């Protein structure tokens, strides 16, 4: 059995990991066909993919390393600015924009991570919030570069050239959706491989029992740092995709309220289940879309649903299908 044949879910005790994955992919691949019939629109599904990827990336830390970051919007927002600034000032290339976004958010997370890996629990969460707010105020104040409060405008995603083939991801929202889905597939595929690898198992070990991990020779701080860095890279990728989706980046993409929303998505969907955060993001985005058209206080309804899920399904939506020691 090679690493690839071991789904990460087998380690978290999901009854049928392949069934869950099959359902998820069947739904994602067919979204543009059935969503309009239910009164949705393709851009809504695109938002689910983007926030789903952000929440799953965040969950590498919370669900699979046992570390709580409350500032992941920082890396999401930096990813968005990295992509937007590249398209606006450097080159009209979508792949380059994505790469720049990953680099900006990923590097920021990697450097910042060096200073915080010795902190635990509340202290870790608080310094991550603090860094997020620093990033927010930089973007907010640096008017000449970022457009300040109004956000960064005046850029647009560029068509994709694959050899002789040109994909019009600019005007055709279905093609853009499938482009996002392809990136999403690569990213989550890599995350799955990561969690099924020996390195991934050391992260589970740290989550389960830091002391035992250390006494098995695992350098806990270094591995938390690596996990943080990887998580930030993927979150930045989600942010870059968000900038491409909206042709826009703004400081609210760095704000701690978004960090909180990412946490809610992951916990609501099930942080011990590989696909849990995606389910949480789907519910969140759909609720936001439907309720916000009725009332500006949509967040209080989302909050209520979050409380109900946590009270009655502490393992989240997908956690219902998991076995565990009932902790």
């Amino acid at each position: 059995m090679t690493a690839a044949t071991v789904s990460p879910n087998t380690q978290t005790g999901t009854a049928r990991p392949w069934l869950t994955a099959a359902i998820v992919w069947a739904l994602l691949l067919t979204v543009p066909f059935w969503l309009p019939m239910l009164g949705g629109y393709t851009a809504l599904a695109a938002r689910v993919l983007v926030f789903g990827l952000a929440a799953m990336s965040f969950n590498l830390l919370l669900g699979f390393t046992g570390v709580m970051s409350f500032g992941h919007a920082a890396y999401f927002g930096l990813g968005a600015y990295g992509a937007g600034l590249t398209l606006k000032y450097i080159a009209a290339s979508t792949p380059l924009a994505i790469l720049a976004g990953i680099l900006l958010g990923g590097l920021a997370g990697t450097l910042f991570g060096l200073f915080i890996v010795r902190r635990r629990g509340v202290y870790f969460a608080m310094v991550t919030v603090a860094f997020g707010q620093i990033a927010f105020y930089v973007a907010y104040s640096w008017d000449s570069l970022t457009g300040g409060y109004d956000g960064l405008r005046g850029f647009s995603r560029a068509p994709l050239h694959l050899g002789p083939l040109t994909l019009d991801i600019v005007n055709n929202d279905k093609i853009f959706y499938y482009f996002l889905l392809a990136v999403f597939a690569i990213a989550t595929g890599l995350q799955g491989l990561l969690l099924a690898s020996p390195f991934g198992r050391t992260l589970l070990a740290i989550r389960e029992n830091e002391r035992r991990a250390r006494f098995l020779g695992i350098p806990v701080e270094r591995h938390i740092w690596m996990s943080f860095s990887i998580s930030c890279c993927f979150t930045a990728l989600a942010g870059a995709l968000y900038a491409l989706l909206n042709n826009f980046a703004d400081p609210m993409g760095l704000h701690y309220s978004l960090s909180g929303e990412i946490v809610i998505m992951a916990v609501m969907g099930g942080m011990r289940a590989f696909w849990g955060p995606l389910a949480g993001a789907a519910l969140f985005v759909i609720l936001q879309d439907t309720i916000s058209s009725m009332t500006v206080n949509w967040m209080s309804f989302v909050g209520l649903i979050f409380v109900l899920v946590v009270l009655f399904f502490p393992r989240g939506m997908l956690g219902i299908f998991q076995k565990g020691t009932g902790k």
Partner: protein
Amino acid sequence: MTMLDIRNVTKRFGSLVAVNDVSMRVEAGELRAIIGPNGAGKTTFFNMISGFFAPSAGDIVFGGTTVTKLAVTERVAMGMARTFQITEIFPELTVRENIRIGVESALGFRQRFWLGKRQVAGVDRGIEEALTHTGLTGQADRLVGELSHGDQRAAEIATALTLKPRLLLLDEPTAGMGEHETYAVANLIRRLHKNSAYTIVLIEHDMRVVFNLADKITVLGEGKMLAEGTPAEIAGNPVVQEAYLGKAE
């Protein structure tokens, strides 16, 4: 050959002297028991050996190398493994996954993102070995958190053994166990010592276990070394009887 040489080790916490100028030599292949009443400094002593914290004074030499100030992971890499009074395992993972993490760490795969077929086969062999060694084969695919107290302890020992340690430190291996479980764990330790020639240092409260298993016994009291010797010598030692055994019975 001396496996562990502890030279005049002292540990102070503020004004409290938890361990006071204790020396101990453990030979390779020996099973040493450390006993003493509560508050004698046994666990503090253990924590210094395994690297939880450094002593305030004195030196710890392991396999000929001074390790006094080395970190836990560095001592682990040199072949020191430890279990705890309150079992420290990965409760929401299966027995097999618990052991797999240890085997992969011991084989130096900690930071690998991919393993080849041959490496995976090597890991699987290590897991089977640890399972048979500790009699856990039948429980391999159960979550450790669901096992009985005794089997959880066996799983912890199995995980520690994956490191192929030159020195195995067991902090109260039978703590909180019933008659039957105590017997099973004691038997496991005896097998490891007699059949596999592990060097073992253990802290233990159950005197039957201690006197049945140990080659030599070190008695601590109020942070100081009270006595050291074979089980027969310790049983006949009036100082020990007064300070410890007399009270316990």
